[in-house]
């Protein structure tokens, strides 16, 4: 599956997109905790396949997961 990072998160991690090995019951929370030096999770939102989702949603092998820092549009 694909994992994406944006804006400050991307720069902090040094990458914007990676493929990630899928395993049964894998959640965004588990992936987040494996990132080196993650930002505080409460400031980050999760999107799965371009929709907001919870950190505890079970992931499918072909999902696109993204971690989103605080939005500042408009």
């Amino acid at each position: 599956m694909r994992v994406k990072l944006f804006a400050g998160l991307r720069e902090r991690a040094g990458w914007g997109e990676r493929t990630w090995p899928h395993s049964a019951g894998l959640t965004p929370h588990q992936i987040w905790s494996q990132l080196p030096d993650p930002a505080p999770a409460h400031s980050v939102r999760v999107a799965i396949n371009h929709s907001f989702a919870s950190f505890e949603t079970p992931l499918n092998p072909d999902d696109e997961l993204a971690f989103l820092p605080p939005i500042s549009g408009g």
Partner: protein
Amino acid sequence: MNWPSCRRSVEAERREPVEATMPRLDLQLLTTTLDPLACLVAWQRQLADLPGGMPAAEAHFIGRVRGVSGQGLPLEALELEHYPAMAERRLQELAKVTAQGTAAVLVRHRIGQLRPGDVIVLVAVAADRRGPAQRCGQALLEGLKHEVPFWKREWVNGVGTWVEGNTPL
């Protein structure tokens, strides 16, 4: 007159017959300079052929890049990153929800590199009454600020800083 800086969205070109209760949505992210009044001129022309003609109420909002950063320093540039596909999708969902009870909604939002004074966002809503037009415009703007994946980076003295959150209402 020629308004090259305001391209129409695919939705606007289609002009399918739609239910009278279905607001006409014209939403677009732009990488090039946004001329808001040019966009409004083109949009109003389209409104004229709505069933019932031009709606009685129109509310617009235009947002521009400030000349100073959040820290009060002279701003060189503002960068707008977005999550492609998700930003468009969220904007569409947001517009569908907030536009209920209105006749037409126009949104133009910049992405990419902007300069102080450049227009970031244009929101325009047409409705039969002032209340729905104003309320939809405000809800759309707040949604763009908090619910559509855009991120601003301020450039000051060659250093970029990501903006976390928005200026207060």
